[in-house]
C-alpha cells in the first residue's frame, strides 16, 4: 500500500493541480482530453494513475471490509467481489485511455 501510496502522491497531486486548479472544470471538454491524449506521455501518465490509484483504493476498501467481516468464507466472497469490481473498472478505464477520444 505504502509503495503505491508514495508513487501516488506526485501522480495524484499533480493531476489535481493541473486539472482542478490550473485548468479548472470549465476548461475541461472532449477537445481538451483529446489534446492531452494526443501526447503519448499523458496517456502513459493516466494509465499509471489509473492502475495505482484504483488498486490502492480497492485494497484499502478490502482492509476496511475485513475489519467488519470476519468469517474466512465471507472474507473470500468479499475478495472475489472486489477483485471483479477492480478488474472491470480498471479494464474499462484502460480501454478508454488506449482507445482515445471519439467525437460524438
Amino acid at each position, binding site marked *: 500500500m505504502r509503495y503505491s501510496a508514495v508513487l501516488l502522491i506526485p501522480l495524484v497531486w499533480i493531476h489535481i493541480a493541473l486539472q482542478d486548479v490550473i485548468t479548472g472544470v*470549465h476548461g475541461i471538454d*472532449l477537445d481538451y482530453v483529446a489534446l492531452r491524449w494526443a501526447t503519448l506521455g499523458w496517456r502513459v501518465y493516466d494509465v499509471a494513475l489509473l492502475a495505482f490509484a484504483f488498486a490502492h*483504493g480497492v485494497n484499502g476498501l478490502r482492509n476496511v471490509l475485513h475489519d467488519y467481516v470476519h468469517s474466512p468464507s465471507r472474507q473470500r466472497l468479499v475478495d472475489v467481489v472486489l477483485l471483479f469490481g477492480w478488474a472491470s473498472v480498471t479494464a474499462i478505464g484502460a480501454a478508454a485511455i488506449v482507445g482515445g477520444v471519439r467525437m460524438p
Partner: protein
Amino acid sequence: MSALKATLEGGLRYRGRQGQIAFILHRISGLGTLLFLAIHILDTATVYFIPRLYEHAIALYRSTPFMLGEIFLVFFVLYHGTNGLRIALFDLLPRLWTEERQRRAFAWVLGISLLLWLPAAYWMGRNLILVNFLGY
C-alpha cells in the same frame, strides 16, 4: 454486524484523541476518494465508449454543488496523502513512534494538509464564483 456495532458505539466512547481522529479521518477520506474515483474513471471512460455522455457529465460537474464538493474532495485527498506519509515514515523508523512524537506529527499533518489546500481552494473557489455567479 457486531463489529460495526462495536465501532459505532465504542467509537464515541473511546477517547483516542489525535490518534483516533487521524485514523477515522484517514478511513473516511480514503473511502470517499475511492467512491469518487470509481465514478470518475467510468465517466471519463465515456470519451471512448459514449462520447455524448461525457458532455453531460462535464455539464453536471460544472454545477455549483459539484464544484463545491470538489473543493472539499481536494482537502480529503491531500489529508489522506499527508497522513499516509506520516504512517509510512514512522513505520520505516519505528523507534521514533512514540505518543508525543505522533501527536506532534499529526499537528504537522493537519498543518501541511491545510497549507497545501488553501491555495487550491482559493483558485477553485475563485473560479466557481467568477464563472458560475458572475458569468465570466
